[in-house]
C-alpha cells in the first residue's frame, strides 16, 4: 500500500536522533502541562510558537504532536487524583476515576487510563493513516465553492454545537473574524482595520493573538480567582492493574476508541460528546452497574480511550482539509501558517515528508507516553505542588517573551495586553474561546475561497452552490442552525415528562445538553435514558449554579432549556 510505504518513510524521518529528542521533549512537556493546573496543550503549543522561527518544521511539529497527545495523558492524572478536571474532555473521567482513587484504587485508575489512552491513541492514529489519504483524494477534486462550504461548516459547527450559549459563541466568532480582518486586503491591497497605524498593516500576528487569548487571558483570569487553599491530592504509588481489571477494561477501551475517533473527525465533534457517550454505554453494558458512581473501572477506561481516539480523529480534518476542530489543532494550524506551509488537501502532496513524519511520530510519542506515564505517575503528581505564584508568573513571563520575540516590538506587547484583557473578559462572561481562534484562522481563508468562487462564476451568486458537495454541506449547516427550531417543535408537540424540574442537578442536565444533538443524529435516543442519575453525579465537578437562566440566550432560550430538562420521551420508558 502506498500509505504504508509513506508511513515507513515517515518513521525513518521521525526516528532520527534529533527528531526522537523532540518527540521526547514534546511528550514530557505535554504530560507536564496536562498535569499542571491552568495550562493545557493549546496554551503550551501557543507559547512554543516562537520556536517556529528557529526550528525545522518537521521537528517542531513532532514536538507539538507530543504535547497534544501528552496533554491527554496528563489531564487524566489530574482528574483522577484531584477531581477538578481542567479540560472538559476529562470531566467524565473524574466522575469514576476520582471515586476509584478515594477508594484506594488510584493505581488501577491511572493504569487503565494510561493503557487505554495508549490503545486508543494507537488505533486512532492507525485509522488516521487509513482515512486521511482517502479524505485527501476526495478533497483534491473539490473546487473553491465546496471549500468555502466546508469552512463555513467548520465555523458554524464549532460555534453552534459546542458550548452552552450559542449567542455567546457567535459573539466570540465575530470577534475572532474581526481580528482576522486586520491588515491588507489580499486582492486589492487596501488597508482594512488598520486605522493608519503602520504596525497594523501586516495584520496581527497569529502568535501574538493566540498567546494573548490562551496564555495571558487565562493567567489573569486564574489570578483573579486563585484558590488560596491548598488542594487535596490523593497520594498514589506506581499504577498497575490486576487480572480482573484487565478483563473489565479491554472492551471499554475498544468501544471508547470506536466512539471517539469519528466524533473527533467531525467538524464539531470534540471530545466531550464521545467521552460522555462512552460513559453511558459502559454503564449500560456493565455487569457491575452498582459500582457506577462509586468508582467503576469501566467508567474510566471507556471515556479515557474515547478522549484519546478523538484526539487522533481531530487530526484527520486538520491535516487532510486544513480544518481545525479544537483549540490545539487550531494553534497547530497557525504554526503551519507561520512556516508559510499552506494547510489543506495539497499538504499531503506538497509536504509528504513532514506529514508522514508527523503521523509516525504520533505512534512513537504514544509509546513514549505509556513508558513515562506508567512508572512515573507519582512523580508527575508531584507537579501539582508547584507554588502557584511561580506557575502563573511563569506563564505571563513566557507569553511576553514569545510575543516579543516575533518582531522584537514593544507594540506587540501592547496588543498582547489588550487581547489578554479581552481573553479575561471572555472567561468572566462565558464567551467561549474556541470560536474566536477558529474564526481568526479560518475566516481569512474562507474569504479567499469566497472571492475565488465568485470570480469563477463571474459574479453570479449561484456560483456558491455550483458543486454538489457544497449543496450537501450547506444542507448540514442549515440543519445545525435549524436544530433549535426542531427541538422546540419536538418539545411543543411531544411534551416530555420533566426530568427533574428546572432546578434539576445540572451535571445530569449538562450531560443531556451535550448528548442532545448526538442522540438526534444517531437515533440513539436510548443513550439519554442512561444519564447518570442525580445521585450519581452529586459530586460531579461542574455544577453551574442555575439552569435556564445562565445558559439561555434570547434566540435559543426555549431550546436550551429543552435540552437541559427533557431527554427524548422514549428514553424515559
Amino acid at each position: 500500500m502506498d500509505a504504508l510505504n509513506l508511513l515507513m518513510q515517515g518513521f525513518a524521518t521521525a526516528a532520527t536522533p534529533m527528531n526522537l529528542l523532540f518527540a521526547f521533549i514534546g511528550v514530557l512537556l505535554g504530560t507536564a502541562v496536562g498535569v499542571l493546573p491552568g495550562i493545557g496543550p493549546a496554551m503550551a503549543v501557543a507559547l512554543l510558537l516562537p520556536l517556529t522561527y528557529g526550528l525545522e518544521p518537521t521537528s517542531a511539529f513532532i514536538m507539538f504532536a507530543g504535547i497534544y497527545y501528552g496533554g491527554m495523558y496528563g489531564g487524566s492524572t489530574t482528574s483522577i487524583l484531584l477531581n477538578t478536571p481542567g479540560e472538559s474532555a476529562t470531566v467524565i473521567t473524574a466522575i469514576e476515576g476520582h471515586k476509584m482513587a478515594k477508594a484506594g484504587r488510584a493505581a488501577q485508575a491511572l493504569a487503565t487510563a494510561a493503557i487505554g489512552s495508549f490503545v486508543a491513541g494507537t488505533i486512532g492514529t492507525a485509522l488516521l493513516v487509513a482515512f486521511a489519504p482517502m479524505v485527501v483524494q476526495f478533497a483534491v477534486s473539490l473546487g473553491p465553492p465546496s471549500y468555502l462550504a466546508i469552512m463555513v461548516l467548520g465555523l458554524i459547527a464549532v460555534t453552534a454545537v459546542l458550548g452552552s450559549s450559542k449567542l455567546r459563541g457567535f459573539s466570540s466568532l465575530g470577534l475572532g473574524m474581526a481580528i482576522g480582518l486586520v491588515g491588507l486586503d489580499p486582492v486589492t491591497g487596501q488597508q482594512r482595520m488598520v486605522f493608519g497605524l503602520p504596525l497594523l498593516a501586516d495584520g496581527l500576528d497569529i502568535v501574538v493573538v493566540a498567546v494573548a487569548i490562551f496564555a495571558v487571558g487565562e493567567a489573569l483570569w486564574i489570578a483573579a480567582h486563585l484558590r488560596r487553599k491548598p488542594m487535596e491530592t490523593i497520594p498514589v504509588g506506581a499504577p498497575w492493574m490486576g487480572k480482573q481489571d484487565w478483563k473489565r477494561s479491554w472492551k471499554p477501551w475498544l468501544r471508547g476508541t470506536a466512539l471517539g475517533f469519528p466524533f473527533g473527525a467531525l467538524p464539531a465533534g470534540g471530545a466531550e460528546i464521545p467521552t460522555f457517550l462512552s460513559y453511558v454505554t459502559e454503564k449500560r453494558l456493565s455487569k457491575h452497574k452498582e459500582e457506577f458512581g462509586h468508582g467503576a473501572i469501566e467508567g474510566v477506561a471507556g471515556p479515557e480511550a474515547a478522549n484519546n481516539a478523538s484526539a487522533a480523529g481531530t487530526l484527520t480534518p486538520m491535516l487532510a482539509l486544513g480544518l481545525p476542530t479544537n483549540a490545539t489543532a487550531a494553534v497547530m494550524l497557525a504554526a503551519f501558517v507561520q512556516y508559510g506551509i499552506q494547510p489543506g488537501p495539497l499538504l499531503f502532496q506538497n509536504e509528504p515528508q513532514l506529514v508522514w513524519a508527523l503521523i509516525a511520530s504520533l505512534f512513537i510519542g504514544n509509546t513514549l507516553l505509556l513508558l513515562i506515564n506508567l512508572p512515573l505517575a507519582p512523580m508527575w503528581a508531584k507537579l501539582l505542588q508547584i507554588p502557584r505564584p511561580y506557575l502563573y508568573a511563569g506563564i505571563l513571563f513566557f507569553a511576553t517573551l514569545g510575543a516579543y520575540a516575533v518582531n522584537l516590538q514593544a507594540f506587540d506587547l501592547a496588543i498582547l495586553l489588550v487581547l489578554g484583557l479581552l481573553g479575561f473578559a471572555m472567561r468572566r462572561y462565558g464567551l467561549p474561546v474556541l470560536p474566536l481562534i477558529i474564526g481568526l484562522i479560518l475566516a481569512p481563508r474562507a474569504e479567499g475561497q469566497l472571492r475565488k468562487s465568485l470570480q469563477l462564476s463571474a459574479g453570479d451568486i449561484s456560483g456558491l452552490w455550483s458543486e454538489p458537495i457544497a449543496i450537501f454541506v450547506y444542507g448540514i449547516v442549515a440543519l445545525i442552525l435549524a436544530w433549535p427550531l426542531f427541538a422546540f417543535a419536538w418539545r411543543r408537540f411531544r411534551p416530555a415528562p420533566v426530568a427533574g424540574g428546572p432546578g434539576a442537578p445540572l451535571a445530569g442536565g449538562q450531560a443531556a445538553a451535550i448528548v442532545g444533538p448526538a442522540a438526534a443524529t444517531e437515533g440513539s435516543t436510548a443513550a439519554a435514558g442512561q444519564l447518570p442519575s442525580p445521585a450519581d453525579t452529586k459530586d460531579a465537578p461542574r455544577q453551574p449554579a442555575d439552569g435556564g437562566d445562565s445558559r439561555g440566550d434570547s434566540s435559543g432560550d426555549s431550546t436550551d432549556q429543552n435540552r437541559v430538562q427533557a431527554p427524548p420521551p422514549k428514553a424515559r420508558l
Partner: protein
Amino acid sequence: MSSQTLKLKGRSELGIAALLGAVGGVVVWDALRLSVPYSHSDPVGPRTVPLIVGGLLLVCAVLLAINVLRGGRGEAEEGEDVDLSHPSDWKTVVPLLAAFLANILLIDTLGWVISGTLLFWGSVWALGSRKYIRDGLISIVMSVATFYGFYLGLGIHLPAGLLAGVL
C-alpha cells in the same frame, strides 16, 4: 448571593454587548470607507466580508443586551485553580497588569534581562509570594537563561539594553 449582586453582575455583562457593538460599528465604518473598484476578477470586493462580520457583531451585541436584560448570564469559566466563590480579586490583577505594563515601557530601553526580571519578580509578588530573595534570584536566572537560550538556540537577539556591553 443576594439578588442585588445578581442584578449588578447581570448588568456588568452589558459591557460585553457594548464592546461587541463598538467593534461591529468600527468594522462596518472601516468597510464603508474602502473603495470598491468594479472588477471582473474580484466581484466580491474587499467590502463584503467585513460587512458580514460587522453585521454579525452588531446583531450579537443587540441580542446579548436583550439576553442580559432578561436575566441571562454567561457562565464564568472554571478550572483547577479557579475558585469562583469569591469575586474577582483586583488586588492581585492590578499589580499584575502594572508589572506587565512596566515591561512594555521598559523593555526597549532597559533590555530584556532587566525588564524580564522585573516582570517575573513583580508577577510573583502580585500573586502573593513574599520570599523576596529567592524570588529575585529565580527571576534573574529566568531572564538571563531565556536571553541566552534565544540567542544561542534560536538565533533571536533579544535587546540587551543597559547591559549591552556586559551580556
